[in-house]
């Protein structure tokens, strides 16, 4: 059997249609989108069509879409762009404890520059309480940044409610929608966000390209300086090929959103139900919260998630645990710690994330292989003997 990939939150294979759309722009249509001549004009046309597609996916106007190198750059541009543009002598940022490192480490860098940051906690189900965000507001607050859905748990945050709080307080509001763009319907007006990050490779587009929605009238300082590309917000010759791929992937995602979502949810629910039923002590993290349809995070007490991921990979099932550090080793998950899991349970948790290509057969395989592997790990685990003997 072909290895089964259940790590779509990490990255997705590209849609064949996106690949096909990109191919001409590698060689035949190699114009620079800023050039005056016909070659440049055709590239420009392709970039602008992609901009429309991305704008449509999130309910924005094309002029509000800035292409970047990906989710991390989008998050950095939003956060540093807003905070460093503000002339206030004292600045304060509100975020949560479960953000992606692109946001968390940006906030920590700001802290080193004297900006104050509040990391709002989340519930045991992995959801932030808008009231906590409201309480964290200060006169000097310049930005609220809260992810749309968490990458490890899939839990969807009450963005629209926080959007209203931000609007009342007249504070800029950014959301990292890398895990929801293409999975959940997004309308920036309804969410009340001023900035929204998304990434192509999480929605069946190519790696190395993303976008930031910037509400019209929002003032932000660019990260880079150069030419006047992207309305002075992101200089550098446009990655035409990548942008075309993102545009096509955005179109496909918009068209398939409901069908893919329902299908993934049904498969995910079955996977979750069966694993919890078949593996003693297994429990779902964030299962009571609204979630992206494709994600489940399950604790298998008395195992090391790292060993479990390796053992499953060797059996042809790819999933993930925690966050891989630069070396590839697993570091304890700040998200699972934030929802109150003790360290040993945080280390014993796995994320399965499904995608467009996931089949029922693949889910059957996962259901058949995981319980046995967990049992094998437990048999060899010094810590499992105790609860077993105590029973």
């Amino acid at each position, binding site marked *: 059997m072909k290895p089964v990939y259940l790590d779509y939150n990490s990255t997705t294979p590209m849609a064949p249609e996106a690949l096909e759309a990109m191919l001409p722009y590698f060689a035949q249509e190699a114009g620079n989108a800023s050039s005056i001549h016909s070659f440049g004009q055709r590239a420009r046309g392709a970039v602008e069509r992609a901009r429309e597609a991305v704008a449509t996916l999130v309910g924005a106007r094309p002029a509000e879409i800035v292409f970047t190198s990906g989710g991390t750059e989008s998050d950095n541009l939003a956060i540093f762009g807003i905070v460093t543009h503000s002339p206030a002598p004292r600045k304060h940022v509100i975020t949560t404890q479960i953000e992606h490192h692109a946001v968390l480490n940006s906030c920590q860098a700001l802290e080193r520059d004297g900006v104050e940051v509040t990391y709002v906690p989340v519930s045991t189900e992995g959801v932030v309480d808008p009231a906590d965000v409201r309480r964290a507001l200060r006169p000097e607050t310049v930005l609220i940044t809260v992810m749309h859905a968490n990458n490890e748990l899939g839990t969807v945050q009450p963005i629209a409610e926080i959007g209203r709080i931000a609007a009342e307080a007249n504070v800029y509001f950014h959301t990292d929608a890398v895990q929801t763009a293409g999975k959940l319907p997004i309308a920036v007006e309804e969410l009340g966000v001023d900035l929204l990050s998304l990434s192509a490779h999480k929605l069946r587009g190519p790696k190395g390209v993303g976008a930031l929605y910037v509400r019209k009238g929002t003032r932000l300082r660019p990260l880079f300086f150069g030419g006047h590309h992207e309305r002075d917000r992101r200089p550098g010759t446009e990655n035409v090929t990548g942008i075309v791929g993102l545009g096509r992937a955005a179109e496909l995602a918009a068209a398939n959103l409901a069908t893919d979502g329902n299908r993934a949810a049904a498969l995910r629910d079955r996977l979750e139900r069966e694993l919890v039923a078949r593996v003693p002590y297994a429990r779902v993290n964030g299962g009571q919260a609204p979630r992206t349809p494709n994600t489940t995070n399950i604790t298998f007490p008395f195992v090391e998630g790292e060993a479990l991921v390796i053992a499953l990979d060797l059996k042809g099932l790819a999933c993930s645990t925690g966050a891989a*550090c630069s*070396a590839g*080793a697993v570091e304890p998950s700040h998200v699972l710690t934030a929802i109150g899991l003790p360290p040993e349970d945080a280390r014993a948790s796995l994320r399965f994330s499904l995608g467009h290509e996931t089949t029922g057969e693949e889910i059957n395989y996962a259901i058949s292989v995981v319980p046995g592997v967990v049992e094998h790990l437990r048999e*060899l685990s010094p810590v499992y003997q105790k609860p077993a003997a105590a029973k």
Partner: protein
Amino acid sequence: MSNATSTDTIVVAMSGGVDSSTVAGLLHRQGARIIGLTMQLWNQRRLPELAGDAPVAHRCCSLDDVYDARRVAEHCGFPYYVVNFERQFEAAVVRPFVENYLAGRTPIPCAQCNTAVKFDELLVTARQIGAERLATGHYARVSRNDATCRWELWRARDAAKDQSYFLFGLTQEQLARTLFPLGELTKAEVRETARELRLPVAEKPESQEICFVPSGDYAQFISAYLEEQGSAAGETSGEILTTEGEVVGAHAGVHQFTVGQRRGLGLSTGQPKYVVRIEPESRRLVVGDDCELFRDTCEVDEVNWISVERLDAPVRAEVKIRHRHEPAPAWVEPVPERPATGEENDGMSAALPSRRVRLRFDAPQRAITPGQAAVFYQGESVLGGGWIR
């Protein structure tokens, strides 16, 4: 390699160096099913002030080493993973290392790492992911003695590279699951094999220092670690006395010294003085002449027996008291460990073999150092070993 069979899956502990890479390459060429694992043991972002001038490539668990190991795996085509053992390494190796130095002892973290991390935690992970055995790049030999039904640990064929001293703590269970494919090879042959296998690390230089202290400056590491942990580093300073009891100076911390050390005492006495003894309770450093460093006896704790199950009567052995020490002939005598309860010694303690021995060397040995290992050899075979009290 008498305990290798072709049906086994074998985990190779890979550091990214030429030795463990060659092990992987050799086993892979022999057709064994192997999985490469690299242990992430220490986060080099911790204690960044220690990085100093040490080149990045020589720092512990550097990305370069992981990259090298990964390239070897890709080159040969076997699965490879990095596993995070930072937590276990700190608890089992780094903290005891610091505590030992503060207690006036001179620890050997590599031996501790082998016993408590590599052949314990890593072996568990190896078995969990479907391997029955663990192969490492150590220069030593392991074999089964069918007469005694014991797994034996033997010196490497290449005496200059022999690492059996660091492996004395391995239990029978651990030895039974261990492969040391380099035990029969010389270092030159290993390099040659690496070149033959076209391993990308074939020309990589050796690393010598303790992996988490790449600068070799233990005192600096200990101070930085204690500071990170929020405990005071300065409290180990004290007086320097001669063996006659005369105070001749002061020192900045017992953890900066080891028995036999001459440098760093800052004494202006006529004759060269050496650390003869460290008294951690009073934080005193006792110094004396070179001749005062020689002892013909010491006690060894927590002995792990390898070629025998236990020791009931004195035996002859050649004893190595530090890594670079020519084994010295001695009597190894069992010392009954006092039962904790005192009187009720009616056969109960006899059931538990003593893990303490007294060594009586034929000739006095220089600088027998508490915290180092004493490993007892009988010919090429390791009888057992423990920690010098």
